[in-house]
């Protein structure tokens, strides 16, 4: 059986006056029912554009898929008619956005907005859809759902709005829920509540989640698989444990090492990645991370292969990922890995 969702070497470029912006430039991953994929990377790494491409929400032009494919249950989404795409969007594949204030319509009652996909995709009449919306609000933990459904977004707090967004996304029982930085605008205690809610929903509905975030803590908590993106490219993909404990790409090393560590007594200086993220118009040739990579050699400027499977289910785009001597450089230097190794042996 084909996977639930398969993104295959996707290239989404934007053709602008200033040049071609290679926002997504070679991203591949697969997603199965009940799985959570964490997508991490810095701003401008192409995380959101990947998600919007799956939803077919990128206006074309200026955007264009110049290469690659997105398949939902084996069928190419890109080849579908606009009508077929509409049948998927908000129905089989739903999305939650970062800022619940700007993504809810301020002039409509919350209940009506949640009922909208039900009327559209499930042909429910107004009354039935409203009743279902009230039920959904209760399900996502909004007290007095009947009254709150009649309220407007501005009467909801940030956390409540995000719950309402989740209710809307869940309305049609989607196979895939794409959450683009769903908790970034929220306080940590509310973030924890929303993440727990998403986990509960997933256990109940067996839907797959694509969780886009820059917070490695959130991915560690939620994700089964992790996709690491840099400069529009997928640089590492694998099971969460593999990516955290046996990372195969220097960018992933850099991310993990940038975090302040508290289980060690020595508070030495943090180890940031040097330099600045690349401009997507002038991507360096070859590996786009090479200019910031502490381990780069001259050959990193050559044509890049993209993701290569280094061990079962664990992919890296680094040309040296298969070189045990190269990996040892990080393992020897990193306090990060040696701490975990020490802990495991205890």
């Amino acid at each position, binding site marked *: 059986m084909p996977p639930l969702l398969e993104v295959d070497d996707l290239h989404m470029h934007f053709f602008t006056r200033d040049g071609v912006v290679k926002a997504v430039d070679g991203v591949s991953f697969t997603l199965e029912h009940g799985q959570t994929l964490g997508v991490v990377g810095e701003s401008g790494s192409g995380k959101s554009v990947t998600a919007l491409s799956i939803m077919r929400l990128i206006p074309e032009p200026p955007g264009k898929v110049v290469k690659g494919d997105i398949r939902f249950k084996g069928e190419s989404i890109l080849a579908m008619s606009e009508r077929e795409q509409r049948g998927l969007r908000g129905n089989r594949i739903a999305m939650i956005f970062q800022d619940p204030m700007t993504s809810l319509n301020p002039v409509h009652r919350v209940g009506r907005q949640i009922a909208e996909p039900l009327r559209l995709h499930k042909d429910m009449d107004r009354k039935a859809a409203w009743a279902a919306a009230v039920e959904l609000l209760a399900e996502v933990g909004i007290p007095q759902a009947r009254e709150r459904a009649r309220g407007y977004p501005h009467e909801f707090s940030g956390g409540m709005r995000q719950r309402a967004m989740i209710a809307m996304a869940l309305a049609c029982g989607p196979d895939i829920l794409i959450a683009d930085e769903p908790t970034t605008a929220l306080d940590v205690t509310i973030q*924890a509540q929303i993440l*727990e809610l998403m986990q509960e929903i997933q256990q109940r509905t067996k839907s797959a989640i694509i969780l886009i975030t820059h917070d490695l803590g959130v991915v560690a908590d939620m994700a089964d698989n992790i996709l690491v993106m840099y400069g529009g490219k997928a640089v590492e993909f694998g099971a969460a*444990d593999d990516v955290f404990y046996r990372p195969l790409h220097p960018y992933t090393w850099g991310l993990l090492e*940038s975090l*302040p560590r*508290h289980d060690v007594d020595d508070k030495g200086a943090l180890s940031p990645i040097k330099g*600045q993220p690349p401009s997507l118009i002038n991507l360096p040739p070859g590996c786009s991370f090479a200019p910031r990579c502490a381990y780069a050699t001259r050959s990193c400027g050559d044509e890049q292969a993209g993701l290569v499977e280094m061990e079962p289910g664990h992919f890296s785009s680094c040309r040296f990922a298969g070189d045990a001597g190269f990996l040892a450089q990080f393992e020897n230097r990193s306090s990060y890995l040696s701490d975990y190794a020490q802990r495991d042996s205890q």
Partner: protein
Amino acid sequence: MTSLLRVDGLTKHFPVSHGVFSSRLGGSVKAVDGISFAIGRGETLGLVGESGCGKSTTGRCINRLHEPSSGSIEFDGTDVRRLRGRRLKAFRRDVQFIFQDPYASLNPRMTFGEIMAEPLVIHGIGSRRERQEQAKDMLKTVGLNPEHIHRYPHEFSGGQRQRVGIARALMLRPKMIICDEPVSALDVSIQAQIINLLEELQEEFGLTYLFIAHDLSMIRYISDDTIVMYLGTLVEKSETEELFENPLHPYTIGLLEAVPIADPDYEKSHKHDLLSGEVPSPINPAPGCRFSSRCKFAKEICRKETPVLKDAGGGHMVACHMVHSEEW
């Protein structure tokens, strides 16, 4: 240890009106409600709390961007609240700000050089040429190319802009910098760069920081002491490691518990014990402990009497009736 800044019973209430056409007042937002703390010279005090807890208002009251409603602020032996006119202006040279959003806090129509020279212009320091030279030096100090003084903010990334925000704050050689969420708008790999820079500069210029943030891991990394605010009140105050290793206030415990750790094994074996509910409105809060509506340990006394900060041992201060009660 002498403290550079001593804040005592600081209160800031904002009146709430019933609308543009009404002169009636509807009580007040008690943004900051009687907090006290001190920062030692050359030290870093971390201030944590969720949005709306009054952390930014506290920062702004310190250099009188907001006029405090009551309480006293003593900076380097001066009573800040009595300062007027020229002496207030001179005091503000000593206390500078770094803001959260490096996109909003730099004027897009000014070059880096102009942005950095502006504090000197305002305080009438140096000639044009001297100011330019100082700006160049400062760019180098914060790790940017001195040639960039003629460039504009839009040409640079968030991390580079934040370096300019820091350079501007340093131009007047302040004694203290209030860092209001200085890294939360930046990417992870850049956050570490900026934090390292702040630490180097502290060393080099002997700076004192008030570091306001909601990111607990950064607070833990950079602060000597940490204070925790909830809805305008101080709930806990302690040496940083002690606070994180041994949090006492139920809110602090809940806050720490809510942070996911970047370690899948830990997350798999750990069930987060979450705080329920949300932060209530700061307009006319109920009497008693502000946290009692969300606290699972709350008893009757918590809803009646406001707890005060008391030492729970070794200078670890906590404002909670239950922590200080017999049965705890």
